[in-house]
């Protein structure tokens, strides 16, 4: 089975580290970006299968990045899972409207990431059950 790549976009190095550890445990190759602009550059170089996306970041935030990504050729392909402290219904609705596939409210753990990735078809059920 081919290893899928997940781009982790977060301005906090701690958050990126936690996400990397969880994603590697569930079998992903992980690349990182510190803001939306860096993330767009990474996507232009090569589109990942999954993107774990923070909302509030300097230079370009996650919401603007998502709009840019979905407008790119092939930009509808990656599954985008927001992962942010913004936990109100308005933010969630805006994110879904802009083309997010799932939404994680921080703090998060491996169970939540597995459940959400399973929800959008990035990992099989058996895998997340085994990791539970």
């Amino acid at each position, binding site marked *: 089975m081919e290893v899928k790549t997940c781009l982790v976009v977060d301005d906090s190095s701690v958050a990126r580290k936690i996400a990397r550890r969880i994603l590697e445990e569930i079998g992903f190759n992980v690349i990182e970006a510190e803001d939306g602009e860096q993330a767009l550059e990474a996507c232009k170089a090569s589109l990942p299968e999954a993107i774990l996306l923070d909302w509030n970041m300097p230079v370009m935030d996650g919401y603007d990045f998502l709009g840019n990504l979905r407008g790119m050729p092939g930009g509808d392909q990656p599954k985008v899972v927001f992962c942010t402290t913004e936990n109100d*219904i308005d933010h*969630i609705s805006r994110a879904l409207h802009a083309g997010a596939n*799932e939404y994680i409210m921080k703090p998060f753990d491996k169970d939540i990431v597995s*459940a*959400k990735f399973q929800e959008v078809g990035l990992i099989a059920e058996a895998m997340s059950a085994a990791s539970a």
Partner: protein
Amino acid sequence: MNQPDYEFLRKLLRDKSGLDLSSDKQYLIESRLHPLARKAGLPGLGELVQKLKDGNGGLTSQVVEAMTTNETFFFRDKVPFDHFREAIVPELLKARASRKSMRIWCAAGSTGQEPYSLAMCLKEMGAALSGWRVEIIATDLSQEVLEKSKAGLYSQFEVQRGLPIQLLVKYFKQVGELWQINADLRAMVQHRQLNLLHDFSQLGTFDVIFCRNVLIYFDQDTKINIFGRLAKLMEPDGFLVLGAAETVVGLTDVFKPLAERRGLYRPSGTVAAKAPALGMLQKMATMAAR
């Protein structure tokens, strides 16, 4: 925890709830009962056991509740809900087309994630069920757990495990730090306290019974007896859904598995022939009622 205390708690739980702990579940007892001991102002489990021996009825039921409350989440295991959407409801829509009603029992409804997941499935089916009367009865041993289910309030953690974000947005409201399932879904579920060891024939007849991850705690005779009584209050063409680690195979032939759908069973029409050990069960029920 010392061995005599462990044996005392094992026997107490078996008598009061049918919970059948194997001899190596000390860690489970410790993790569940330490917080309870602390809440009661007791230094440890030894003191808790002493209080129970002195005959503290309130504390006894708290111990039973703490030990029988299971972790649950929305759409747990997924597969049973696929069965519900793809097989159970479509078939009942045909079979009950004239009376347009269906009754569903969640026999270990716990904190509500299972009954509300079923309610959301039904809502998502929309027009196909318009004009139908659907009852979901959620029962549980624990009153505390049922109160939580009735309130329909869940933490941010709880709503992120198994619940797709679209359904959260559609069917929940934010209440402070918590999320509450909408009133119209809460109204679809009725709650009753119930011990599966006791007679439950007063609940009426059901088209669907979800009885997941509760029978695993019972010994064989009790399981067989419960299957027999479940079969008696199920429509002859109804559906029984068991947990992933559970089966009727080798225990009873009152239900038969559906080969193509894991965890799904239907009555086999041999109900009258089987329901042994009821006398013993009634004795246990009487004890538990004291």
